[in-house]
């Protein structure tokens, strides 16, 4: 049977695009091969590792198991869309650098996209909720603590809790100062 192609219209990183795709193509393939957005990583290709995560209409999806044709009319963001016009890093990207949350870097774009959704949600997640929200991503290098800390600190800063963000210790726990004893 002959291959079937379709035209997909969507917005990627703020730009409207029109792309012909094989109906079987994954969104990962379209973003990487046709649009050259190589931050979208091909890891497991079965939706387990989260390296291919992109934001579609405000929510994180595994683009490796998302058909490109489903992107019709959707607004998609990849890591390339988070940087400023001069290549400046967004705050969540900078936090990953500052906290040493990157080693080989393969899982990083996916982690950052999910983190971006978390920190822009306006919600204050508990430590447990935050760990669960990040659990669709696998990292073989960092041991997750630095990633967790980067996301937690950025989330607190987005909520205007700058002092609290500085109290997050190396294990990601917020260490409040001892209250002054009564005299």
């Amino acid at each position, binding site marked *: 049977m*002959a291959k079937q192609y379709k035209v997909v219209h969507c917005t990627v990183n703020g730009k409207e695009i029109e792309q012909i795709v094989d109906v079987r193509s994954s969104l990962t393939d379209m973003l990487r091969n046709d649009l050259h957005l190589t931050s979208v990583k091909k890891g497991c290709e*079965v939706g387990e590792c989260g390296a291919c995560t992109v934001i579609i209409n405000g929510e994180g999806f*595994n683009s490796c198991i998302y058909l490109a*044709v489903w992107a019709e009319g959707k607004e998609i963001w990849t890591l390339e869309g988070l940087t400023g016009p001069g290549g400046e890093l967004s705050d969540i990207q900078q936090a990953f650098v500052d906290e040493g949350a990157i080693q080989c870097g393969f899982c990083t774009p996916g982690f950052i996209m999910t983190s971006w959704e978390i920190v822009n949600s306006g919600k204050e997640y508990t430590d447990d909720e935050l760990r*669960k929200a990040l659990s669709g991503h696998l990292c073989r290098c960092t041991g997750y603590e630095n990633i967790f800390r980067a996301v937690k600190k950025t989330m607190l800063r987005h909520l205007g809790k700058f002092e609290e963000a500085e109290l997050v210790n190396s294990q990601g726990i917020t260490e409040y100062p001892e209250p002054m004893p009564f005299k």
Partner: protein
Amino acid sequence: MATQLLMAKSPEEAIGAKNASAVFIAGGTEVNRLGSDAAAAADTLISLKKCAGLNEIEEAGDMVRIGAMCTFQQIVESQKTPAYLKEAALFMASRTKRNMATIGGNIAALRDDSYLLPVLFAVHAELEVLKAGRTESMTAYSYMESAEADGDMLITAVCVPKNMKVVSKRYANTAQSHAVLTMSAAMTGEGISLYGAVKNVGLLYFCDLEKAFRENPDISEDEIIEMVRVCTGLETADDMFGSDDYKRYLIGVTAFGLHSKLAGKEV
């Protein structure tokens, strides 16, 4: 391997296009990773993403009606969803996958490590199924039995009781791994209802254990473990998920634990 894709606009269009060489694709977390033999052999995919009217969660008396295309994340976030179903949906640890996976897709995949089927079986969930141009109602368990004989059915909605005492347990090496055992127990009008999914064995109705608990609510853990150990109807085997003995032991202690929890006993 599929080369054609049909974006169905309605459930009727989707079922009309279904034939032996076509498979439905809902959220894509199973079919797009070729998680079933049918998906690998199909030449046409029938996408249900654009089907209207399949993604609402609504209350209907003492039941909750969930559209088949509702995602796991919708189920988790909805205030109408019963807590026991939210718990089962959260067994899928990845939020990015929960944004995609649908309740209808998870049922239709009939996986032996299904996230939702044990709990849907236990609460005797009713499915609305489109078949040969008309909608039928059947329990999730009857769907499983019919689907093996007749694949040309499309689930359009799932109805679950709003208030029911239900407990579930899932065992896997990591939150992302295939589960060796998922088991659910519900307290129905007739007594305990006990179902499970055992990896490489299948979706199971533990009728003998159910009977044992109903006849003797004070049955001991050792008696239950022994019952499962010698059960000839249970076709467990040694594999990478564990030994035959391990699986049988796990089924026994889990069944006992769930029953005790339902009865409000200390475990």
